[in-house]
């Protein structure tokens, strides 16, 4: 039981970290950024390249996260900004982000090939710890720790800083924010930077956790991320955190009691039920929104 909770929290922390970035962009632009999973994947590969080049993980992780953030800014410039004033920008934005995801995946395929790449042995000290009746590896605990710290940092940044206020203002109403003197373009670019950086961090942690990175590694997480942001409420950062952990736990218990073949199905069943019974999710805004 304790072991299952631990495993659920561990998987859930990665889902949550991934989904927080996903939902942040949706909250600001009302657009589903389908390239988020591609950034997740690219960032894992960047970390792998840096580790292979002999750098310590302590350098490689922040560098890959920064690179992911910069990719996010490029993504916004190329795929989202030109479409912003279009009437159907939420569907055309979805499609242009899809286009960028395809390009990113093609680049990764060309450079790294379709096979699974792995971090070299000894990238992270191989140690296990005993907590109650459960065992956890040091790596798992560090992953949970890093995710929680990053999500807390984002919450603080959004809640307490000037930039956070600007991003929230744009999420509420870009026009009103502009009238009040907020640099809307910059706020949106920064939201993309933060979102992609967190998605990138999730990618590196995922790559470390399962020690396998391939160009399609983002696929499964992408669809689970959708389940998480729907369950948490589109655009709600605390909702995505709670729902990420919830989905991790649900999955682990499903595997334990129903068998592993149901693991992936359960997230879509959850997604489906939430959309039909309570489309605004656990923490979503109550107002009817035509996304």
């Amino acid at each position, binding site marked *: 039981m304790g072991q299952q909770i631990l495993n659920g929290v561990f998987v859930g922390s990665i889902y949550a970290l991934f989904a927080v970035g996903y939902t942040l962009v949706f909250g600001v632009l009302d657009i589903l950024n389908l390239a988020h999973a591609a950034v997740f994947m690219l960032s894992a590969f960047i970390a792998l390249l840096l580790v292979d080049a002999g750098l310590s993980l302590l350098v490689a992780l922040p560098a890959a996260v920064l690179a992911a953030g910069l990719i996010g800014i490029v993504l916004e410039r*190329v795929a989202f900004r030109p479409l912003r004033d279009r009437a159907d920008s939420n569907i055309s934005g979805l499609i242009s982000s899809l286009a960028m995801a395809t*390009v990113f995946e*093609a*680049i990764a395929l060309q450079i790294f090939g379709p096979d699974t790449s792995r971090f070299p042995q000894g990238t992270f000290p191989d140690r296990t710890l005993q907590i109650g009746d459960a065992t956890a590896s040091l790596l798992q605990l560090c992953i949970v720790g890093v995710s929680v710290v990053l999500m807390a940092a984002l919450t603080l940044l959004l809640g307490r800083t000037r930039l956070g206020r600007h991003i929230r203002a744009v999420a509420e109403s870009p026009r009103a924010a502009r009238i009040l003197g907020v640099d809307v373009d910059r706020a949106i670019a920064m939201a993309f930077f933060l979102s992609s950086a967190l998605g990138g961090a999730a990618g590196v942690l995922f790559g470390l956790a399962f020690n396998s990175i391939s160009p399609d590694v983002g696929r499964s997480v992408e669809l689970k991320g959708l389940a998480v942001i729907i369950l948490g409420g589109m655009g709600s950062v605390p909702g995505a955190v709670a729902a990420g952990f919830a989905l991790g736990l649900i999955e682990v218990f499903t595997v334990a009691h129903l068998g592993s*073949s149901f693991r992936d*199905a359960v997230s*879509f069943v959850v997604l489906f039920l939430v*959309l039909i019974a309570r*489309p605004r999710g656990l923490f979503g805004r109550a107002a009817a929104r*035509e996304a």
Partner: protein
Amino acid sequence: MSDLFLAYESLIAFVGINGLLALSVYATLCCGQLSLANAGFMAIGAYTGALITLKAPGVPFIAVLAAATLAPAIVAVPLGLPVLRLRGVFLAIATVGFGEVVRLFFVNWDYTNGALGLVAIPQRTHLWTIALALAVALYGLGRLRGSRTGYALEAIREDETAARTMGIYTTGHKLAMLVAGAALAGLAGALEAHHTFIVSPGTFVFGRVVDMLVQAVVGGTAAFYGPALGAAFLTVLPELLREIGARLGLAPGPFRLFLNGVILLAVILYLPNGLVSLPARLRRRARGSA
């Protein structure tokens, strides 16, 4: 000429099948609904058709195709009733969930060999079968244009609330188009299964419905023939450019993917109404410069 035809027979078949699939996405898109359930509908059609052919070889192919068209259409009704209340991105996400559930169902179903799928399906699809199916689909969707139903669909696309206020039965229209799209996807699935000899759950991943959407958008959804055109363009172009990619030292898989991405991006940024709007656009430009 006939040699050329034989060499490219499979490519031509895929132009037709992809055309049907792109039209199946267009069916809901033309009333403003982004439904991404079509890989799931396609799977239902493909498995239905393949199972009938394998278990009851005596059944004529036309009946097999009819069953494969009908099965996903029937599934679409109970799916659509709750799901079509959702709008925009929410509808897209719910239908993605449905598609994945269908795929995972077939992965776990022992009767259809799970993840391996059904193999050694006799080849019963001919080029003319595909051409006929595509022609019927195009005719049906073309006839909608200018009809009472067609105007209702356009009204729903432009403003659903306003359409309902004008007395248009929005739920019924949306459901009808979802069912039509499901039927087309199922038909395409069965045609593909009897062309490639094999049906496996790996064919019906999320990426498959993305391909359909991309082809529909690149072709243009302002005209009923746009999606079929887009499918033809995106199916043939990578074959034509494969030589160039190889000369640049790029592997065919990534190169094709890269090309798809770049074309999609260029179309959505610079040609929002797709390839079908290109002639009018060029004419306008020519007149402007003269």
